[in-house]
């Protein structure tokens, strides 16, 4: 039972980090705008920080999947979760209402309690991973990590397709660049 829970938590965490890291790496401007408005950083610094956060999230993906000790898998999640909670708290305390841009695109909702809750869930996921062991039925070490990565990649891809279904449908039916 514990091994199934560990697999679900790891796949979910890796899928979310893949989507947010990949999104911000390629489209960093929305999150950079949020950084700029929340902490008052310059444009260049905000863009750099946005990309740095994206790289950190992608490194966390590798650590969560390949970490050979429970703490190595848990710490990245707790650090990123704390970062999200602190960033949201600063935004709320300064009464800044700005779109998060957490997944790269600007259509996300403004920073608020949802983000704080999401950060808290990541922290709890990290705590959970320190207490439950990976099972051995799916293999060990790299074998298990590859399964986690591929399952998470599939989940992230499907979620991305579902989220963009309207735009993709329009792209397929009307072609690239039409009416723009």
């Amino acid at each position, binding site marked *: 039972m514990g091994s199934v829970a560990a697999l679900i938590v790891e796949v979910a965490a890796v899928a979310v980090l*893949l*989507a947010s*890291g*990949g*999104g*911000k*790496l*390629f*489209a960093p*401007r*929305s999150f*950079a*705008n949020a950084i*700029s408005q929340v902490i008052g950083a*310059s*444009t*260049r610094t*905000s*863009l750099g920080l946005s990309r740095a956060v994206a790289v950190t999230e*992608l490194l966390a*993906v590798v650590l969560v999947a390949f970490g050979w000790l429970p703490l190595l898998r848990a710490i990245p999640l707790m650090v990123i979760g704390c970062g999200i909670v602190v960033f949201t708290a600063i935004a709320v305390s300064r009464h800044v209402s*700005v*779109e998060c841009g957490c*997944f*790269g*695109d*600007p*259509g996300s909702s403004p920073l608020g309690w949802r983000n704080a809750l999401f950060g808290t869930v990541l922290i709890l996921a990290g705590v959970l991973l320190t207490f439950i062991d990976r099972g051995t039925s799916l*293999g060990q*070490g*790299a*074998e298990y990590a*590859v399964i986690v*990565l*591929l399952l998470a*990649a599939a989940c*992230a*891809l499907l979620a*991305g*397709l579902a*989220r*963009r279904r309207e*735009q993709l449908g329009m*792209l397929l039916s009307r072609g690239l660049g039409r*009416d*723009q």
Partner: protein
Amino acid sequence: MTVIVILLSVVVLLLVVAVLGLFAMMGELNARVDGRAESLPTTLVPLEEARVGSVIERWPAEFGGLQSDTTAVLILSSSCTSCARILSGETGELPPPGNLGIVLVAPGIEDGVQFLSQYPRADDYPHFIDAGGDWTRENIGIQSSPSVIQLEARRIVKASAFASAQALVTEIPK
């Protein structure tokens, strides 16, 4: 588990990251070109390529009437659909004239005059037609429109892309 399987998994992972990145870029593009005014983002997106901090040496004579040291200039283009919608008022009311100028990048002066003649509200603002876009490239360093440049004593303090006139309301000095 062979090394090849691990390598293939890493390749798949990188491809997925790239696809997710493309989705995010598509969302960013979509937000800037979406046809519905209410769905347009009302935030400004910083332009990193702009020469923030530099002073504009060649100040167009058309902007002589801007009233204070704190001014803003919209960079629009005659070939940009969003710019036409902004000037037509489809995306909301532009900030009142006084501290706001318009630079219209057009292939030639005549093209610019013809474009502006379709949008009478442009006459309320001091405007300058930048034939070929040389002035904008040399003085501001950007090549995208619609954009807004905020200046203090002709020094660029902020340069951002925007998608609707609503986005300018809180940013432009009155």
